[in-house]
């Protein structure tokens, strides 16, 4: 049902039930292992395992594709450049490494509620208290970032519609100025809403 990068997809799969801390630790270990793998066949195997994990998570093809879609052109360019400089095997290794890591990171975010991720990050960032930082506020930044993506996407869509209506769709300034003003207004309103919900106590 969900095709947006990084958006939680509800479910009851074993991956959904796994604690957020375990998933993040697993991701760190596997990404380190990916850097150490040198064989395209080993990385191909990792890609197959990743595809298997997506199947296990039952998030659907659209949600799976949404996680790697943003890096598709980067991956193509990376493969082409690497092919020129280090050959086809090196190109396959580097490109697979990046794509598999992105796919695994995406899998963690779409099978983990933001609130669970925030709780883990708060625990991990507890030492930040020693230098006067509030771990809750730091983890809140993460959730606000995720929450703001669709809001800004909607805003950009409205600005583009307004541009078309006024016949200035090619003007970068006519797009950027209302987008920035709208984003700042949203930030103001969000700050006020957080205060109203007692978050500045």
């Amino acid at each position, binding site marked *: 049902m*969900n095709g*947006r990068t990084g*958006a*939680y997809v*509800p479910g009851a799969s074993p991956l959904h039930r796994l604690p957020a801390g375990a998933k993040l630790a697993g991701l760190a270990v596997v990404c380190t292992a990916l850097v150490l793998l040198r064989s395209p066949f080993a990385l191909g195997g990792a890609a197959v395992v990743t595809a298997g994990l997506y199947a296990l998570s039952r998030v659907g093809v659209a949600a799976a594709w949404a996680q790697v879609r943003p890096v598709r052109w980067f991956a193509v360019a990376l493969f082409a450049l690497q092919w020129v400089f280090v050959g086809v095997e090196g190109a396959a290794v580097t490109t697979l490494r990046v794509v598999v890591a992105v796919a695994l990171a995406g899998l963690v975010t779409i099978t983990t*509620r*933001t*609130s669970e991720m925030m709780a883990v990050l708060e625990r991990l960032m507890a030492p930040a208290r020693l230098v006067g930082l509030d771990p*809750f506020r730091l983890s*809140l930044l993460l*959730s*606000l970032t*995720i*929450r703001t993506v*669709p*809001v800004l996407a*909607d805003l950009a869509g409205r600005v583009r519609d307004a541009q078309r209506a006024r016949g200035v769709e090619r003007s970068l300034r006519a797009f950027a100025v209302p987008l920035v003003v709208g984003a700042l207004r*949203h930030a103001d*309103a*969000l700050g*006020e*809403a*957080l*205060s*109203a*919900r*007692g*978050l*500045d*106590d």
Partner: protein
Amino acid sequence: MIEFADVRVRLGERDVLRGVTASLGERRIGVVGANGSGKSTLARLINGLALPTSGTVTVLGLDTRRQAAKIRREVGFLFTDPDAQIVMPTVAEDVAFSLRRHRLPREEADRRVAEVLGRYGLAGHADHPAHHLSGGQKQLLALCSVMVLEPRVIVMDEPTTLLDLRHSRQVAELLRELPQQVVVVTHDLPLLAGFDRVLVLDEGRVVADGVPEEAIGHYRKLMA
């Protein structure tokens, strides 16, 4: 009880409120007025989102200038644009977010979230992304996020402005059923049917204050 004592608010060069004095003890209170009349500022004063330049605002005996944090635990605030007050990506998480600072046991927090989502018809959307909801459902979600804290007073700033007729009616019905004291700032005059008291603001002053029929009649004349 909400008390305004000679409240003045000056923003830059503009006097937004010019000496408002009122005691609001009724269960349903409406505030109407033209754009720029100061009604939203009046609402924001109630939970300390805005502070008076002079005069005092007390809510449940607490001074908003000195005890804003305590007041916000007792006063829920519903904004016009629900998108601006939804903080978390999914519906249930956003409601649960309100409870974070209360450090409730997980089971108790989950129970309260499920109960409030069920009460306002959003139980089936608990795990859905909040941005997938319709405008009316988002306003209901914002209300859930307020209600889960069981506030004693609820302030709503134009809660139906962005809603279609069906969702406006839904909010109006819910509003009638809320057990709390409710202060509603609105241009939606039918929303105030059955209210106990309506204040009319004009250029920062309360120019009419009474039962809805009288006060709204005065407002219509003012706008004619």
